[in-house]
């Protein structure tokens, strides 16, 4: 075990035992990654800052349950994605402010997700140019599925929920997206294979 790992463990232990300074240092160390996850998931910096703050509050509330089986950064990353997913779900809910029938007299379930405010997508305009180029060169839904899985560590069912597709479709998109991205990044793509279509269930 290296000293960095040990010092992180010590920091966690101190924070768990109520040491305020240790908790502050721990949060300071985790903020950048937490914010990065939030900004990728939420799309804009202002919302990401709010969600990063909420993530730090949740980390503080739940730190006593952190048992060290995963690394602290992995755990915080997971808290951040869960926080952002919760916010997305909250935003997708239609507020129950009106009668439960629409203009045509059809009953409306206020608990149904508001499809027009579904997942806005992952942005990568500011990432390293070769990565951005590779992502832009493959179908958007494939690239996005790979980023949600490999960068943000979301579960298949969470990605399926965000992208409004079946889990099987998500797995398929991830697998194909990884293959295409790897080829692009190796620089050995062949002309004409940029936009594969079909072969998936909606």
């Amino acid at each position, binding site marked *: 075990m290296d000293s960095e790992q040990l010092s992180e463990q010590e920091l966690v232990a101190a924070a768990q035992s109520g040491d305020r300074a240790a908790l*502050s240092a721990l949060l300071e160390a985790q903020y950048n990654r937490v914010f990065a996850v939030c900004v990728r998931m939420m799309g804009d910096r202002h919302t990401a800052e709010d969600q*990063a703050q909420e993530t730090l509050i949740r980390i503080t509330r739940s730190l*006593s349950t952190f*048992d060290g089986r995963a690394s602290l950064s992995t755990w915080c990353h997971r808290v951040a994605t*869960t926080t952002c997913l919760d916010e997305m779900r909250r935003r997708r809910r239609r507020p129950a402010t009106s009668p439960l029938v629409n203009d045509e007299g059809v009953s409306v379930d206020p608990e149904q997700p508001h499809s027009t405010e579904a997942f806005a997508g992952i942005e*990568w305009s500011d990432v390293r140019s070769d990565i951005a180029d590779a992502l832009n060169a493959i179908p958007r839904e494939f690239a996005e599925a*790979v980023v949600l899985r*490999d*960068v943000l560590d979301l579960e298949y069912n969470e990605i399926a929920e965000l992208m409004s597709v079946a889990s099987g479709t998500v797995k398929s998109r*991830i697998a194909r997206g990884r293959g295409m991205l790897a080829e692009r990044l190796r620089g050995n793509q062949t002309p004409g294979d940029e936009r594969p279509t079909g072969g998936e269930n909606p």
Partner: protein
Amino acid sequence: MTDHTDDLGRADGDEPLDDLTRVLKVAFLDDVQVAASARQRAIQAALAERDTLTHRDVVDLSSVRTRRWARSTLSIAAGLLLVVAGASLFVNRQGSSFDSAATESMVAEDSAELRVKGDLPAADAAGSSHESLDSAADEEVVSAQSEMMVADAAAPAIAEMSDVAEMEEAASEPTELLDVTSDDDLVSVARETQSSIQRGDVSPPAVDCVLVGGLVPVAVVGYFGQEVAVYVDDVASTVVAVTTADCAVVATVPFNK
């Protein structure tokens, strides 16, 4: 699913390509510009939350201790009252018997003396003496009776206090505990009970322990010989078991959502 194979990763496209994942993570997460003011604001908010939680925990622990102190004090007070009332009755009854015996003895002595000394007046004197002694004995009896009445009057209050203490004890001790013998069962019981609580089918159990984060207990079960309160932390996807005796965490079991 494809059977694509390349030199960056594995044949099965469902498995992450380690190098690709690393490259993507670095590109997406390591180069994000962070506003120092936003970071500071977030940390301060989290620390404020921590301070609030700490304060709440102290208050909760204090109220738990106060309740326990009040309960034991009540029991002790009730016990003392019973002892005092019992002792008082015992002393008075014993004193009364003693006085009666003494009176009889004195009357006998007086009567004998008067019989030696003379006739009717002596008998009258003995009678009046006897009456006055009887009256004294009656006063003692009245006194003993009034003590008994005081004790009787106090009895319902004592019984009530005793009942309250017993009821509180009974409320804090479930009569029948579900025994959980594995982590899987613990998670299963916790999540099922949580669902029932969320549906409104059952109420959360009353438990003195308060976890950081203000988690609400979902069940009290037997767990490897200990009575534990079970909490579900949805944020961390863990089930936490703490002993009801001293709120010590005895298990933290992760679960898949």
